[in-house]
């Protein structure tokens, strides 16, 4: 493997010191040979343009501060390096720093990876190298240069440094975690789409957790492509490792999380917030469309989905039990890609199985009428049903409002254009001006209407839709309880049967059968007990959950309505401004 040792020159190193500086091209040639010939290397290095000489170490030091180019460190540095110095004038000192700065662009890659490497070096290398971490310190380079000058020592440096690039490929992700402080408080850019980033920011306040979903990106091409989202978490909850960080997740990851949570928690009576639905049409459009052709329709779809994912994450995280769930934590924290939740695909065997299950359950729901002894549940079930129906109706009228307002925005825009044309045709000058103003004012109102339509949609309509889905999650939980009841009933019936069987056996005097029957009776007694417990437990849990759910629901609803009204009010105020500016213009018509 080729290795280039390039020492960043200090100001004290004048190009004049290197009589062979001008022999740059020739000097590089020998370097093309495989490295470990340290002294030869260093001599040549020294003889070549000091500005071009850099150790990978200092290369790496410059990168965090200078460049954040995510190039592969291992792609042939030599030719690249040989090229970089040449364009510069080897002679002038200012260029030294320039080339120092530029080198990393071409040669250096995967900056955080390499930059983290040197940390290990100081342990192994000499102190000078450690100092080389900071670009500002000339001593490091000087020392390296000195050490290179002393050709014997050059061996040490070079041989020390030689193995390093080979160690570069050591898993970067691991390194990323360890020295977050190395990068200081500056942001690192995203290296690759699958890695996370670390931010060393603190956050205070009461126990809280807030998740934002952003930066939807299309990864890959064609049918195998998918959308990835950046999930940023801010929290001060203790069992999370950091206070503020991001990971990249794809859509199926979210669905996978939901499924796992449902599997684990539904039967304990928890209400699991539903995840956004899969949409075949929207997804296919995204997959097959190119980035440039992203029309407003698919952008809308992406935005909708992003907002829905954000709401989903926040709802799930406010639930203390779900928040502590290891799957949830892994989802939110793990920096690497999650294992593909293949079972979320609609066409997989698991998907088909789920579908069948769901059909079975629906039938069950319809046919089994539970003997409700608990008044509370009776009332709540009723209420949930009517709430569901009413919310659906409300949602429909909200969607109508959104559509009409969007239409209003469009027709206002058309009118603005027509008025502009009219104003240009009008020969009376002040009337023409006024008409032009009218056109502009209408243009502005159009923007306001459009923004309001978006608010209508995202604040009002989408939230209501979420609630409809939440209600069906609640219904699912209620149904779980019904199922538990069923199990209990079934157990009781079986117990009765077994007791009967035992009594019969006793009458018939069949002692062996009696023994067996006795065992079965005991077994089923146990089952009855357990299922009763289970039933009561789930009933209690649901009651608690519902309390919390109610509180949350009421609060959410109020917040939503208040926000919406505020938006409406802002729109109106903006409209006021528009017309206020127009009136003097109209009055000015002579």
């Amino acid at each position, binding site marked *: 493997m080729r290795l280039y040792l390039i020492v960043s020159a200090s100001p004290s190193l004048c190009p004049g010191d290197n009589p062979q500086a001008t022999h740059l091209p020739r000097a590089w040639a020998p370097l093309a040979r495989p490295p470990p010939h340290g002294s030869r290397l260093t001599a040549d290095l020294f003889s070549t343009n000091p500005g071009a000489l850099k150790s990978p170490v200092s290369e790496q030091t410059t990168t965090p501060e200078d460049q954040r180019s995510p190039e592969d460190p291992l792609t042939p540095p030599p030719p690249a390096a040989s090229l970089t110095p040449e364009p510069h004038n080897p002679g002038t000192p200012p260029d030294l720093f320039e080339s120092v700065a530029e080198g990393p662009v071409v040669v250096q890659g995967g900056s955080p990876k390499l930059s983290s490497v040197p940390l290990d070096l100081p342990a192994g290398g000499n102190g000078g190298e450690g100092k080389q971490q900071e670009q500002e310190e000339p001593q490091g380079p000087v020392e390296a240069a000195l050490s290179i000058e002393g050709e014997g020592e050059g061996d040490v440096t070079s041989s020390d440094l030689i193995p390093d690039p080979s160690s570069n490929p050591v898993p970067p992700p691991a390194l990323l975690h360890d020295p977050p402080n190395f990068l200081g408080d500056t942001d690192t850019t995203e290296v690759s789409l699958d890695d996370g980033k670390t931010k060393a920011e603190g956050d205070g306040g009461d126990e809280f957790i807030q998740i934002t979903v952003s930066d939807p990106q299309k990864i890959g091409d064609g049918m195998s492509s998918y959308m990835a989202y950046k999930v940023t978490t801010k929290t001060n909850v203790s069992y999370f490792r950091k206070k503020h960080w991001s990971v990249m997740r794809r859509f199926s990851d979210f669905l996978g999380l939901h499924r796992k949570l449902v599997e684990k928690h539904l039967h304990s009576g928890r209400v699991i917030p539903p995840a956004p639905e899969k949409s075949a049409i929207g997804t296919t459009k995204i997959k097959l469309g190119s980035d440039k052709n992203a029309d407003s329709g698919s952008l809308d779809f992406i935005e909708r989905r992003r907002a829905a994912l954000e709401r989903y994450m926040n709802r799930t995280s406010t639930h203390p039990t779900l928040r502590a769930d290891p799957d949830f934590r892994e989802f939110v924290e793990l920096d690497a890609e999650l294992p593909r939740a293949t079972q979320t695909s609609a066409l997989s065997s698991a998907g088909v199985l789920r579908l069948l299950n769901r059909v079975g359950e629906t039938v069950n729901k319809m046919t089994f009428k539970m003997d409700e002894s608990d008044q509370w549940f009776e009332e709540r079930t009723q209420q949930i049903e009517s709430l569901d129906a009413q919310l659906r109706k409300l949602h429909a009228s909200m969607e109508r409002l959104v559509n009409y307002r969007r239409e209003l925005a469009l027709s206002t825009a058309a009118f603005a254009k*027509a008025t502009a044309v009219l104003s240009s045709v009008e020969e009376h000058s002040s009337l023409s001006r006024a008409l032009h103003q009218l056109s502009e004012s209408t243009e502005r109102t159009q923007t306001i209407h459009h923004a309001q339509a978006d608010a209508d949609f995202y604040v009002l309509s989408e939230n209501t839709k979420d609630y409809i889905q939440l209600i069906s999650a609640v219904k699912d939980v209620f149904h779980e309880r019904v199922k538990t009841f069923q199990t209990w009933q079934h157990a009781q019936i079986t117990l009765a049967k077994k007791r009967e069987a035992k009594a019969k056996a006793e009458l018939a005097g069949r002692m062996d059968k009696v023994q067996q029957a006795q065992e079965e009776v005991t077994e089923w007694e146990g089952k009855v007990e357990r299922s009763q417990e289970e039933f009561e437990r789930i009933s209690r849990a649901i009651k608690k959950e519902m309390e919390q759910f109610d509180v949350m629901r009421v609060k959410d*609803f109020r917040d939503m309505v208040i926000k919406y009204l*505020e938006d409406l009010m802002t729109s109106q105020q903006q*409209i006021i401004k528009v017309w206020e500016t127009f009136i003097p213009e109209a009055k000015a018509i002579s």
Partner: protein
Amino acid sequence: MAPILFQDGMEDVLPSETNGTKSGRSDTVDLNDSTLQVDISDALSEREKVKFTVHTKTTLPDYAKPEFSVVRQHEEFIWLHDRFDENEDYAGYIIPPPPPRPDFDASREKLQKLGEGEGSMTKEEFSKMKQELEAEYLATFKKTVAMHEVFLTRLAQHTVFRNDHNFKVFLEYEQDLSVRTKNKKEKVEGLFKSFNKSTDEILLAATQKDVDDYFEREKTFLLEYHMAIKDATTKADKMTQAHKSVADSYIQLSSGLSQLGTIEGPRLEKFINKVADTFEKARKVEGRVSSDEDLKLSDTLRYYVRDGSAAKDLLYRRLRCLANYEQANKNLDRARAKNKDVHAPVDVADAELAQQNACEKFEHISNKAKEELNDLKARRVTAFKKNLIELAELELKHAKAQAQLLKSCLQSLPEE
């Protein structure tokens, strides 16, 4: 549809159309230079037609009584307009555009749809929407009355038109004018006539060179302007429609919310009811915005589309006259040439006479036309100014009202 009696009260629509009278004044309806005052005091809407009660007050000697009323229908207005249009004496004037046919189809359709969907909404919602539709119907009705009235007032104020015999008949004759709507044959004839006219127009426009630069310019301007303003009118209409739909959808939102309130129970009920109430009020304001936009903006634009059309007609007539004049000239020359030897002065005299008539006519028209066009311009500017100001002020008022409404709602809400 039950008959709706119309009482006076459309003054706010009138002024916009009747400003800029012949005497150049731009202040409003007070027809004080009038010894002839015409208005529509009453109107009745029956199944298919609307009956207008035309009321006249006059001090002119020609009229039998100083004050009287007759009942007229839309077709009779059109008849009157046609009489003016055909009259060659008026060729140099812009004939006030006829009022459009009263059209309640849209409202009727909506009412029907509402009736069909009655099952899917609550009683409250249904009655609210019905109220809205009825208000809409009423508004359309008022508008059509106003337009008919404007037509008449313009005629009454015009120094030449007001003395027209047909006008007098229209105002006075107590019986039905027995203007039957054109039967099929006449309709087809009418179609042909207008077709001819438009081809002639195009032909003339292409071939006839106007001697007067002013008129050339006017023609081009009017054509362009006409297209632009027609476009603006359609777009304005669409916009006001959309606005109305937004306002109407608030109704469903409001009632949906109140129902939700009853289900939710005490915790949220008060909150929700306040919000539902706010939406209801907001809806009314939005509705007003829509109708005001319609009135001030769309109607103004629409009226000037029609007026512009009438001006175009004037120009056309003038051009035709010019063509005739040039033709007469040619005839005269030809006659003179033909009759040079034979000295048959009759032909020549005829041709001369014809040429002279044509010349006079043309000059007359040209002068009048110039006046009329300038007048139109002035009228248009003032009308636009007035309506734009009023539009802006109304929009401002409504926006402020809505903002206030929402603010007070928000303030009263956070009561846990």
